[in-house]
């Protein structure tokens, strides 16, 4: 009878550790990165997020599924300029930044974590020649 509880102890401890880790972590399920078109609407700024992280990035207008959303685009090397149009790959995080929106109101701007970015150079439309 004593052999069975002895064998169950490690399993019970591992289960308890996983349960505690799940309760305490801020992790969320993995989401694939998405590609969006963005336009930078601010200079590079150093910000503190709602979760207490200090990040460097830009305010940007992201276009996705025909909707425009203002986000804080976080890059480790801020090398773009105000007005640059980019194709950005990354993920929206659970974090946000409080910024004044005017009229004494504060808005929560979501944080977009950038993994890759390249300039969005629009191609000239192909117009068929008149016959």
């Amino acid at each position, binding site marked *: 009878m004593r052999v069975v509880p002895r064998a169950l102890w490690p399993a019970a401890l591992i289960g308890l550790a996983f349960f505690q880790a799940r309760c305490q972590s801020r992790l969320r399920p993995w989401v694939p990165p998405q590609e969006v078109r963005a336009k930078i609407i601010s200079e590079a700024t150093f910000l503190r997020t709602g979760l207490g992280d200090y990040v460097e990035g830009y305010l940007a207008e992201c276009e996705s599924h025909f909707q425009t959303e203002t986000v804080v685009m976080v*890059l*480790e*090397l801020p090398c773009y300029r105000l007005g640059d149009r980019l194709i950005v790959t990354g993920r929206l995080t659970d974090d946000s930044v409080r910024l004044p929106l005017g009229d004494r109101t504060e808005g929560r701007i979501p944080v977009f974590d*950038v*993994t890759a*970015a*390249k*300039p969005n150079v629009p191609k000239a439309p192909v117009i068929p020649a008149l016959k």
Partner: protein
Amino acid sequence: MRARPVSRPALGLAALLVLAGCRSGPSEGWSSRARTMILTSGPTAIVMSSSQVPGYWAREAESEQEFFLYTPVRSYEKGGRVTVEGPFGVASAAVFRDEEGTYLRRSPTRVLVVWKMAGADGRSDKGPASREAAGHARRP
């Protein structure tokens, strides 16, 4: 129980090989030989572990491999030919390519920590991580 006479030299040879293997270390990442590089960028920076690392992008003249030369020296120009010494290894870094205007957060990059850098004009610079600074100076 007497050991066979043949097994003793074999054991000695095996021990020698094990000892040599332990002492030699990996061939990549640790080389003090001078390398000739062509700078493919001006002074720039990459980010490793949330820290900005200053330096230059360069292409090795022999192997055409691309390196990031970690040095605080900012006086060299793009296209210059330099001779560098120092250890190197592959790191995951956030990089920005000026030519294409692209940013990549986790890019596998060969980083060479410059111990000594000399330009074609004979000017020589030592990096912050030079052997002397790191305490690896050869004692007389």
